[in-house]
């Protein structure tokens, strides 16, 4: 197994019974997928549970995977659906975009940036970015994290979330604009 092997080739080999191919795929996607989940749910234990569920589902459904589907799209679709299930179970619907609430959250991030920096500037930026991401509406945050952590294109984001291409593009654009606004001091 080498780094040059494509996701499709590795997945096909895993389907054929090669456990090493799965290890390679797992090493390739474990960190970004975990971050994608961990930045959307708290506490961390819950992210662990969701992360494990996603991979278990992938293992169970490995024979149904078709090479024509991109592996990353398939993996993040599983993760997105697991998140939806979790929110549905928690009674948390996708947040309706509330402009006032957004403004309040982003203002809070901005006010924190105005605080005296006890740590380095980068540490303040990291904290502000985490807070700004957390303050995004669910759909925008999901679209942004799919792009930033999963490195998915707008088309792939639309496929994963089940939204139209324009809707996905719009969500991503709004998310970037808000984050840029919240982190203006570091721009």
């Amino acid at each position, binding site marked *: 197994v080498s780094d040059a092997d494509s996701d499709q080739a590795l997945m096909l080999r*895993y389907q054929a*019974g090669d*456990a090493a191919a*799965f*290890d390679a795929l*797992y090493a390739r996607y*474990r*960190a970004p997928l*975990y*971050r994608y989940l*961990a930045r959307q749910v708290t506490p*961390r234990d819950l992210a*662990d549970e969701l*992360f*494990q569920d996603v*991979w*278990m589902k992938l*293992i*169970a459904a*490995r*024979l149904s995977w078709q090479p024509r589907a991109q592996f990353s799209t398939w993996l993040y679709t599983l993760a997105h659906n697991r998140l939806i299930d979790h929110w549905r179970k928690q009674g948390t619907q996708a947040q309706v975009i509330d402009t006032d609430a957004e403004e309040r959250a982003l203002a809070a991030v901005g006010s924190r940036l105005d605080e005296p920096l006890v740590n380095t500037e980068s540490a303040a*930026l*990291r904290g502000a*970015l*985490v807070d700004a*991401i957390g303050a995004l509406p669910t759909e925008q945050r999901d679209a*942004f*994290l799919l*792009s*930033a*952590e999963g*490195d998915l294109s707008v088309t792939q984001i639309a496929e994963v979330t089940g939204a139209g291409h324009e809707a996905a593009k719009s969500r991503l654009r709004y998310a*970037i604009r808000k*984050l*840029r606004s919240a*982190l203006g001091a*570091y*721009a």
Partner: protein
Amino acid sequence: MNHDDLKRAVRALEPIKPPPSVDAAIRQAARAALPSTRRRPARFLFPLATAAVLVLGFGVVLLQPKRAAIEPPAPTESAPSAVSADAAPAADDTQHAAVPMAEAKAIAAEPQAASTADALNRSAPAGVAGPPLADSARQQAPASELMVSAERARSAPVTQASPAPPPPPPPAAAGESIPWPTPQTATDALAQPSAASPPAPKPVLNEPFPAPASTAPLDATSERRAAESSDPITVAIERLRALKASKRIAEFRAARAQFQRDFPNVDLPPDLRE
């Protein structure tokens, strides 16, 4: 700060990773899922093997009664070897098996036919009147014929001597079995019961044979030859030929087995062997 800057900033955040226990659990699950795929063929092999065993066992059980009907019980060491041992007849069900066995033993002792005939004379009940068996048998019949006829003669008085004579065998339905022609020998005449005694059921040589499966007529030539011949061996051989010619294979095999039991020292003609 554009989109790429934001992506870089997000990826530069504190590296959070899944705990090693989660990693281990996922990798273990991924490996555990693989052998189950390889075991899949065994999942259908086991029911297949079970079904095959059941089918074979059922087939053997189905074949068992047929074989038992064709093959008589094997002779045992405890079977009566002397003619006098047959004085007490067995039950009706076992009579078919016991009599051919005694006949086979008696015929096997062909050189001692004279002494056996004497024994027959001795075993005849005192109250049954009739000419002596031995002399006429020696004079008019070959050894094998003598033995078969002597067996018939023996069976009649024995039937009379039993306290509850068995019912006469049911008459064979037309076309169900092929009766063996009764050879007209001197011993036959001698074997007839006296006028004082009630008529004994006439033994029929084809009793041990199973009923024929088909009613196809036998070869006319063979039947005619069998009717003309008075030698029981010849009669039996002609009957075997007739059965074979009429393609009644099951009956032919049963009759041949019976022939070999009745006449163990007589070689079958080549055309009647397998």
